[in-house]
């Protein structure tokens, strides 16, 4: 599976992954916002160490599959230049019950933000970054 994409993330498509035994879907979407630490943001450039980011996301998916065997996880992270309102990352977790759908989704985004080699460069209204 390719976890990284330079195209817009098709978030609604990530809703379609439920099995007939799934009663709960938890979706997290990270969105570029217009402000960070008090400074206005106009855009963010996401840069990845591509092959390592792919394998780290696969490792996170494998770990979650062991910890939450009932949960099926889908993950996408976008790279390139994104505008305010664009989805930078989306994680969908489906499960028969909601407790582990929430827990696995939350664990996934926390780990993605901690260990996947992706970096952000913010651009400000005055053109600085």
């Amino acid at each position: 599976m390719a976890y990284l994409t330079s195209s817009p993330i098709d978030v609604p498509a990530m809703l379609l992954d439920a099995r007939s035994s799934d009663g709960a879907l938890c979706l997290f979407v990270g969105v570029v916002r217009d402000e960070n630490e008090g400074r206005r943001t106009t855009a963010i450039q996401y840069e990845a160490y591509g092959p390592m980011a792919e394998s780290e996301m696969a490792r996170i998916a494998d770990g979650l599959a062991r910890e939450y065997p009932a949960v099926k996880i889908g993950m996408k992270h976008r790279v390139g230049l994104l505008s305010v309102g664009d989805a930078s990352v989306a994680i969908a977790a489906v499960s028969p019950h909601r407790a582990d759908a929430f827990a696995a989704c939350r664990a996934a985004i926390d780990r993605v933000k901690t260990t996947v080699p992706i970096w952000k460069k913010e651009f400000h209204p005055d053109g600085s970054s």
Partner: protein
Amino acid sequence: MRVRLLHFASFREAAGRDEEEREIADGTRVSELWSALGKQVALFRRFPKMPPAAVNREYAAPDTVLRDGDEVAFLPPVAGG
């Protein structure tokens, strides 16, 4: 022996390039390569400790011994999502 060194984000900007080949002595450890880089690039000296490193696209401990042909990267603080 030679390793391929990749630079990303702020480290790329500090190093002024995104990759380089480096000649290193047999038995060089990851932490020793980081120290050698610090002699060239001021930004790298300012780190109180070695940042996370990857060898062949996996996180690697500072005492990992490098081998000929390894792909090595020191990773600026990660901030995905």
